[in-house]
C-alpha cells in the first residue's frame, strides 16, 4: 500500500477547509516498497514529541527514587563489576582505575540497552493506539528511543563529579561523545524497529529480549577492554556496532587507547545495515500491525 499524500496537514485549517480535487489520502492494494514515509513522519513530529514526553513523564511515577534510577542502575552495575571483575578477577582496564573504566562504558551501554528494550516493547505496549487510531507507526518506537536520551543525559552529567573524584581531567575529545552516543541510539533504533515489528507477530521476542541484551552486554567491551580479545577474532568482534561505540566513548572521555577510527567506521557500517533493514522490515509490516494485534 502506498500513501501518496500526507494524511495530516501541518497547519490544520480552523474551519472545514475546502480540499477540492486532490485526494489527500489514497489507499491502494498493499505492496512492498522501500519508501519510508519521511514526509508523514515529519508531519507528525508533534505526536512524536508528545509520546516521548509521556514516556518520560510516566516512567518514574510512583517510585521513591524517581529519576535517581537513571544514575543508580549504571553506577551500581559499574561498582559491582569493579568489585567482582576488577578487584577479584583482576581484569585489566587499559591503565585506568577500573570503576572509571566500567562506568564510562555503562553510560552509553545503558542508553543502548534501555532504548532497545523500550523500543522493542513499544508497539505491543501501545496496542490500543494502534488498533484505534492511525498515525505513522514508526512514531512509537522512535519516541521510545528518544525518551531514553533523558536518562543518558543524567548519567552523563554524573560522569563529571565521578571523573573529578578520580582526578581525571576530561579531554578535548569529550565533545565527540554525544555523537558516539547518537550512534548507540541509531543501533538501538535499528534493532528496535526489527524487534518491535517482530514482537507484534511473535510474542517470543518479549522473552528473548532480556536474554539478547545480556548476551550483547557480554559481547561488548563494557566489563573488559577490547585488548583482551585475540587479534584474529577482532574482525568478527568489531561487527558488533556497540564495540566501536563503547571504545569510542572511552577514548573520547578518557583518551585511553588509540583513536578508534577503523573500529568506529565498521560500527557505522553495521549500524547502517541494521537501520536500513529495520526501516525496510518495519515499513513492510506496518500495515498488518492492527490485524495482528
Amino acid at each position, binding site marked *: 500500500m502506498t500513501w501518496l499524500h500526507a494524511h495530516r496537514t501541518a497547519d490544520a485549517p480552523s474551519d472545514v477547509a475546502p480540499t477540492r480535487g486532490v485526494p489527500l489520502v489514497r489507499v491502494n492494494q498493499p505492496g512492498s516498497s522501500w519508501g519510508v514515509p519521511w514526509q508523514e513522519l515529519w508531519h507528525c513530529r508533534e505526536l512524536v514529541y508528545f509520546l516521548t514526553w509521556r514516556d518520560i513523564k510516566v516512567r518514574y511515577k510512583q517510585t521513591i527514587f524517581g529519576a535517581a534510577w537513571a544514575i543508580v542502575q549504571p553506577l551500581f552495575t559499574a561498582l559491582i563489576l569493579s568489585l567482582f571483575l576488577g578487584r577479584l578477577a583482576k581484569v585489566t582496564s587499559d591503565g585506568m582505575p577500573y570503576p572509571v573504566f566500567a562506568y564510562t562504558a555503562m553510560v552509553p551501554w545503558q542508553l543502548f540497552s534501555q532504548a532497545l528494550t523500550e523500543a522493542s516493547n513499544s508497539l505491543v505496549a501501545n496496542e490500543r493506539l494502534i488498533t484505534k487510531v492511525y498515525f505513522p507507526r514508526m512514531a512509537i518506537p522512535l519516541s521510545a528511543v528518544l525518551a531514553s536520551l533523558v536518562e543518558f543525559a543524567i548519567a552523563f552529567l554524573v560522569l563529571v563529579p565521578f571523573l573529578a573524584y578520580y582526578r581525571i581531567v576530561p579531554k578535548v575529545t569529550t565533545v565527540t561523545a554525544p555523537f558516539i552516543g547518537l550512534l548507540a541510539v541509531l543501533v538501538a533504533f535499528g534493532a528496535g524497529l526489527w524487534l518491535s515489528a517482530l514482537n507484534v507477530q511473535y510474542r*517470543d521476542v518479549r522473552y528473548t529480549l532480556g536474554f539478547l541484551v545480556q548476551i550483547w552486554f557480554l559481547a561488548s567491551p563494557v566489563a573488559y577492554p577490547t585488548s583482551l580479545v585475540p587479534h584474529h577474532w577482532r574482525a568478527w568482534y568489531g561487527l558488533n556496532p556497540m564495540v566501536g561505540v563503547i571504545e569510542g566513548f572511552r577514548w573520547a572521555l578518557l583518551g585511553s587507547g588509540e583513536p578508534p577510527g577503523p573500529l568506529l567506521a565498521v560500527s557505522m557500517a553495521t549500524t547502517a545495515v541494521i537501520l536500513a533493514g529495520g526501516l525496510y522490515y518495519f515499513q513492510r509490516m506496518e500495515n498488518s500491525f492492527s490485524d495482528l494485534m
Partner: protein
Amino acid sequence: MAVHCDGISKRYRLGERQRYRALRDTLTRAMVAPVRRMRRAFRHQAPGDGRGPEYVWALNDVSLEVRRGEVLGIIGRNGAGKSTLLKILSRITTPTTGRVEVYGRTGSLLEVGTGFHPELTGRENIYLNGAILGMTRREIDRKFDEIVEFSECSRFLDTPVKHYSSGMYLRLAFAVAAHLETEILLVDEVLAVGDAPFQKKCLARASEAAHAGRTVLFVSHNLLAVNTLCSRTICLHEGKIVCEGPSHQVTSYYLKDWITRLTEVVYSDLARAPGNEGFRLRRVCVRPVNGIPADPITVRTPFVVEIEYQKRDDRDSLELVVDLLDEHGVHILETWWPYERPVPSGLIRSWFTVPGDLLNAGPHRLRLSGAFAGCALPLLEDLLVFDVQDSGDLRGLYHGNWPGAVRPNIEWRTEQLGALSPGDDSPPI
C-alpha cells in the same frame, strides 16, 4: 466527493485477530505446509485461492461514494463488516484488494479516550490525546478552554485521570474527540457507552458536525438515531452492501428482511463459535417458560433466555451480560451473571427468566457480551431477535398502538372519597 471506495475487500485469517502467533506455530506450519501442498498436487487440486475455510471476508467487493457534507448511516448485523469499513477508511487497517480515496482529514470517534494515560493529569491528557487524534499543538491551545468547558472537568484539570470517576473520564475523552475538526468524521457506536445525557451529547455533536457541512459516516444499531441523523444509509450483510437509499427506507427494510426472527442459535462447529480457547458459545435461545423456542411469547408470558457454552477451566472467571433492546435500538434492560460467582468447567447452561407483564409488544433484540478470565468476549449484537406478541387482554376496548418501551401490568384503583350532596358543584375537600 469526500470518500470514494472502489471494490474494496478485506480478508482475515480466522483466529488471526484473536490470538497472536507464537514462533512455534509458524514453524509447525512451515513444516506441515510442504506436505500439504504435495498432497494437494497429488490430488490435482488447485492451490487455495484464499476462500477456503480458514479465511473470512469481512468485506467483499464494496464500492461506495460519499459526497462532501453528506451524512451516511451504516447499519447491519454483527460481523457484517461495518467496523472493518470504518477501520479501512480511517487507515487503521488496509484493504486486501481495492482502492480507497479519502479527500480530507478523517477523525474518528471509534473509541474515545484512546491514548489517555492514567498517571497524567487531565490537562496533560488533553494535549496527548489531541496529538494522537491528529491535532496540532496550536490547534489544541486554541480549543483548550472550549474542551475543558465541554468536559465539565475544569476543577480536576490538574488531577491525574486515574482519580477521575468513569463518567468524568468519559466526558473529558469525548470532549477532546468532539473538538477534532476534520473534514470527515467517522462515528462508531459511541452511543453504546455512557449514560443517557452523555449519549444525547454525542448525538448532538454528530448532528452539529453534519449541519456544519462536514461529512459524517455513522455506524449504529440505533435505527432511530440513524433515521434522524442520516439522509442516506447503506446496509451491510456478510461484507456486502445489500441495500442503499434514503435512511427510513433502508432501516425499515433492514428491520423487515435482515433482522429475521431468530429465537435460537446453535453453533455446531465449536471451533468457529464465538469465544476464545477457554470459552466457546454453543447455543443461545429464548423460549416461553413452559415451551420451546418456536413457541410464541406474549406480553404476559414469562420467558427464559438460555445460554449454553463450553468452559475449559473451573478457575477462570466468567461474566455474561445480556441486554434487551427494542426494534429501534432503545435499550430496555441489562442483566448479568457477575464474574465473582464461580462457574464450573464443562458444558454449561446459564439461564434467567424475564417476568411476564414487562416488555411491550414488538420485535426485541438481544445482545450478549461479557468477559472471560479478564478478557472481553466479542460483543454479539442482535444475537437473537424475537417477537413479543400482544396478548389482547388488558386492553379493554382500546385497539390502537400501545406506546412505551415496557408494558408492565399496572393496577389502577379508583375509589369514592365521598358522595355528592344534592345541589353541590364541587366535591367536599
